[in-house]
């Protein structure tokens, strides 16, 4: 009986360990995507706007609302709040999703990379 409990505990602990790195790995892969495709324009530090606005706190933020960044009318008037769904659509094809955006970025065409990137962005709080 005690052997059974030990095995059960080990199985639960094992699956928990497996689950945590899997989530972290997505965000880690997303960080690589960010560095390779977004890092020239965007910072992730709070309040640090560069060519693009800081992406700190992007998930949950209203589009065009970061203080100290001059947005296009397209972004300001989009009425979008960034969440997993809206980011996925925008990052797939920014100019088609928000016409007039000044973000000179063709988008992340690879769906897995996009999901990883969004997972990374969600950690920026």
């Amino acid at each position, binding site marked *: 009986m005690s052997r059974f409990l030990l095995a059960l505990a080990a199985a639960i602990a094992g699956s928990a360990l497996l689950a945590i790195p899997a989530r972290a790995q997505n965000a880690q892969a997303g960080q690589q995507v960010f560095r390779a*495709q977004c*890092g020239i324009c965007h910072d992730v530090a709070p309040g640090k706007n560069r060519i693009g606005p800081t992406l700190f706190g992007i998930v949950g933020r209203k589009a065009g609302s970061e203080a100290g960044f001059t947005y296009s009318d397209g972004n300001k008037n989009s009425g979008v709040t960034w969440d997993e769904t809206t980011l996925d659509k925008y990052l797939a094809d920014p100019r088609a999703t928000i016409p007039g955006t000044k973000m*000179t*970025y063709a988008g992340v065409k690879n769906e897995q990379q996009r999901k990883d990137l969004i997972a990374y962005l969600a950690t920026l709080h």
Partner: protein
Amino acid sequence: MGLSRAAVVAAMALSTCVAFLPVSAARAQQQQTHPIPQSIRLDHEEAIRQLTAVAQRKGRTGEIARKALEVFKAHIRREEEYILPPLTLAPAIAEGRVTPDMRWAIAMVDRIKADREVIFAEHTTITAWMNQLAEAARRAHQKDVLELAETLVADSLADTEVMEPAAIVIGEYLRAKLPPAQ
């Protein structure tokens, strides 16, 4: 008969040339007689000089810079052909001078408006290359290359945010102020 066929072919060729003459002549005139603001010319020359220097390096940054340089030069050619020349009229217009010999800028601005998405796509391509260059520079600890990539992307944003809209404003102002062309 042979002579007559040759004459017909020659006449057709001539008429084709004549038909295209106004467009090519206008474009040639745009290229030859309308420079860009000197400050921007210097910026372009410096950017090309620096990117060319990186392109001559061995390794990943050099490899990326060589590819980026081709895209960058093509974009600069387009800018110098018809995007930036209208900006040379800004000082005169700011002083309240508008004269019929400024009309050439309207045709250029019409081209900018027609090509806006193509121009935007070029900026997108340049940004993508600069992103790659920056990432390679970080890995190679080449701070100068990283700074160059960031500068060129900022220039690209300045084109989108300021230069192209300013040129369009100039053209539309001239269109409103000058009597219609005969």
